[in-house]
């Protein structure tokens, strides 16, 4: 009703788009040169050792030979011409593929420009070499045409030069395409990563501000707990933790909230010892606990409880977060955290994991079922950076059967 009350949206930029002055084009080229041309070429060239690719090379070479034969041979000599041309083109193509296969590691370390240039020179060199060889061996490539032997070599070089340039351009575009796909996937997972909610942050700061005067030691504990949660939320998406570590983070979160809500929050955390070392993505469970506090305890004047439980169910681990259901019109945003976790499960557990929710006896129950084995594969950018929280010395995992804040203000 009051549009002005939402006026904090920044005005969209009014810069005209579409017209690029010459200076900007030069800038763009310079940036491309700096950021991509000189960067390691990595997967610029496909793996020529791969059987499937070798087959494609053979197929491509044969098609080229066919085009050349159709273009130059009279009808009566078509098959003979095709045979000879195929022999020649296959020689060049397969030798190039073999050399590129051997040089793969070497090229991957060079910059894009160097790798492209070397591959191009290789194609030209092979063409020259085999052309000369063919002419010397009297393979008959020369009598097919009216050209002199040296012209045969020059003609072959020109054809190889054009086809080589087109193929390299194709490989480059393919690399760009794969790169974009990968960046998009990474961005998607990063965006799904659990974040500290501003509400929680500022409320915790207020708690600390209050405790600094009345109970400095407890204030210290809150700062420590908050730091742990922050560190975890800043970790790379898809980082791996053990279930005990994840439960420890949940406990730290609950400790802070218990202080803030002053006795209105009762929490119990139970972890089957067999699941202590089970790996899972970092901050997969904590958002569910946060949800439970936010929707199940905070709106109740008399407070409520949150129960966090992990147990073994066959080949799977079942993690259950439950809270009382307040008899109030539900606040918005309830589904956001759940949808987010579901999407993360779909991305990170291709083999199958689930999050189900149900309402039973006036309780809200969220149930996560995970396979007990999980590897962070598919997230190469995360594998090496596996959470710093987890490997930090001095972080002990304490799983208390009955959660109690370590100290209470008077």
């Amino acid at each position, binding site marked *: 009703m009051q549009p002005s009350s939402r006026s904090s949206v920044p005005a969209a930029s009014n810069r005209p788009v579409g017209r690029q002055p010459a200076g900007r084009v030069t800038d763009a080229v310079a940036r491309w040169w700096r950021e991509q041309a000189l960067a390691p070429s990595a997967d610029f060239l496909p793996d020529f050792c791969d059987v499937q690719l070798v087959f494609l090379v053979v197929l491509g070479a044969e098609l080229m030979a066919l085009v050349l034969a159709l273009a130059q041979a009279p009808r009566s000599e078509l098959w003979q011409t095709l045979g000879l041309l195929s022999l020649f083109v296959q020689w060049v193509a397969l030798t190039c593929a073999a050399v590129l296969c051997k040089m793969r590691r070497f090229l991957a370390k060079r910059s894009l420009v160097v790798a492209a240039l070397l591959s191009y020179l290789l194609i030209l060199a092979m063409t020259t070499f085999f052309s000369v060889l063919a002419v010397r061996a009297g393979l008959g490539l020369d009598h097919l045409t009216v050209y002199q032997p040296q012209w045969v070599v020059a003609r072959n070089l020109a054809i190889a030069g054009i086809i080589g340039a087109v193929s390299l351009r194709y490989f480059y575009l393919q690399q760009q395409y794969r790169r974009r796909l990968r960046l998009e996937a990474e961005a998607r997972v990063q965006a799904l990563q659990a974040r500290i909610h501003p509400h929680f942050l500022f409320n915790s700061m207020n708690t600390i501000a209050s405790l600094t005067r009345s109970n400095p030691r407890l204030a210290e504990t809150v700062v420590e707990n908050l730091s742990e949660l922050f560190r975890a939320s800043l970790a790379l998406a898809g980082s791996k933790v053990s279930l005990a570590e994840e439960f420890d983070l949940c406990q730290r979160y609950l400790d802070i909230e218990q202080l803030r809500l002053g006795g209105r929050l009762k929490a119990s955390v139970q972890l089957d010892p067999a699941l202590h070392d089970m790996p899972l993505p970092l901050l997969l469970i904590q958002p569910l606990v946060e949800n439970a506090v936010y929707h199940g305890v905070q709106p109740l004047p008399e407070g409520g409880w949150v129960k966090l439980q992990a147990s073994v169910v066959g080949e799977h681990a079942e993690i259950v977060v439950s809270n009382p259901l307040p008899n109030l019109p539900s606040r918005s945003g309830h589904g956001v955290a759940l949808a987010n976790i579901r999407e993360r499960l779909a991305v990170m557990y291709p083999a199958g994991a689930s999050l189900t929710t149900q309402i039973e006896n006036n309780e809200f129950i969220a149930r996560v079922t995970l396979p007990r084995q999980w590897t962070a594969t598919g997230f190469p950018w995360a594998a090496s950076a596996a959470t710093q929280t987890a490997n930090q010395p001095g972080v002990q995992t304490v799983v208390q059967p009955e959660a109690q804040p370590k100290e209470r*203000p008077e």
Partner: protein
Amino acid sequence: MKVLIVDDEPLARERLRRCCEEDLTGYQVVAEANDGASAIAEAQRHAPDVVLLDVRMPGMDGIEAARHLAELDPAPAVIFTTAYDDYALAAFAVHAVGYLLKPVRREKLEEALNAAAKPNRVLLATLRGEDGKVRARSHISARMRGNLVLVKIEEVLYFQADQKYITVRHPGGEVLIEEALKDLEEEFGERFVRIHRNALVALAGIVALERGALGRTVIRMKGISETLEVSRRHLPGLRATLRQL
């Protein structure tokens, strides 16, 4: 200057109390309350000059509490405190009303206390909940012999418009308020149904439809003896609504 602190978090109250009493001079914290309803009770008991009112609280939130506090005579000035509330903050900023962000800074607190003003009706009507929607009140407040009486909306059996006032009937009796029946219908449309040009009835309180004198249909409500007349125009709509329950 007498200050009332309202916040559901004990540590947040403690900090505000210290800031008011130890760091600033001339302010006396007369009471604390942990939700909107008890804030109104404390405000009536102590008649504070300023209320430091948390926006987010279980039960009755700060925004609704401010609406009821504005009915008091004399109404206290209100300073809202909040940790982070997009919608409320935007509204406060637009109406230049006192609000403080937690953790509260001492200078800002002093500034706000010095400039404390009463929020006006226009502001109160436009304040939104955390999800950006204007929320229906949880209580109806009415003045009775100088005191403010709160009636829970779940307890209201019907609203009946008279010439100038609206009678709010609840099991414990009735109170009079000065509002428009149309606004009440808009605000509480989910709970109440219109049965007559002058009456809104709580769906949950309806016991039976009966045939009254002169062929009129009347409605019988839970726990009270009087019946309400259903107008001929509203009868089909009412029947349809009841059938869906």
